């Protein structure tokens, strides 16, 4: 008999400003999100530009020019709305271009570390 688990969702946040990751994670702690994984990611535009630079041929050699960070976190469904609000607060509005993208996905099963 397995104990009933709370409903969880996978929150995916793609931040175009890597500098804000630290603030986002601090916010996660504040809201009670206990864990997240941060991955260096690349937007489509950055990949396209890498192939076809005009004046800045060296730019694609530097790792930070990948530009974005993807934050993945499985969290209780009850936290989702507050996390969306947190992202909005940190970014200053999700409707601006080049700010962030965030969405949730249902988690059917979850096994692994439980805090």
């Amino acid at each position, binding site marked *: 008999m397995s104990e009933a688990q709370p409903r969880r969702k996978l929150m995916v946040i793609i931040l175009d400003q890597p500098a804000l990751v630290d*603030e986002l994670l*601090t*916010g*996660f*702690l*504040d*809201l*009670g999100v*206990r864990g997240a994984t941060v991955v260096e990611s690349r937007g489509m535009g950055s990949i396209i530009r890498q192939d076809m630079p005009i004046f800045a041929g060296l730019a694609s050699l530097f790792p930070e020019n990948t530009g974005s960070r993807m934050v993945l976190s499985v969290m209780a469904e009850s936290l989702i709305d*507050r996390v969306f*609000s*947190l992202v909005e*607060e940190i970014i200053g509005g999700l409707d601006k271009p080049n700010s962030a993208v965030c969405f949730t996905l249902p988690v059917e099963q979850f096994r692994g570390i439980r*805090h």
Partner: protein
Amino acid sequence: MRLDQFLRPDLTFKLDAVDACDRLLEMLSQRIANQVEGIDAEPLFTALQEREQRGVTSTPDGVAFPHAMLEGIEDSFIAAALVAGGVSMGRSEHPPCDVVFVLVGPANAAWEHVRILARLARICHTPGTLNHLRGSADASQLHERLLAEDARHV
């Protein structure tokens, strides 16, 4: 997590100039012990001092977050202080700290402790917040402004 449950008007202070970090921690420990039942100044001071020795809690914005987890207390609380002229917490690259938050919590509530610290860090990192707090005329206004800043955040 809202901070209103941890902030208390009687634990909000506006202090005159203090010459050293240890002196500040001692003074704050004494004031906390005077206000909070079950807290002794000496062990609190020792715990705060030990924490600072392990790693200074100041930030480049001139804020310090000395904190301690103590046996024998049931609830977390925050003491907030404005220190005239600021005091160096021991990191030469940081400016003297004139906004100080002392967080005290039960030894068995580590997660809550981390969350409160994260909340304080977020609030203090928001542009304009520190200047707003620093402009408080007295301790009660500092308390009010802290609650107002807390309410601005998710």
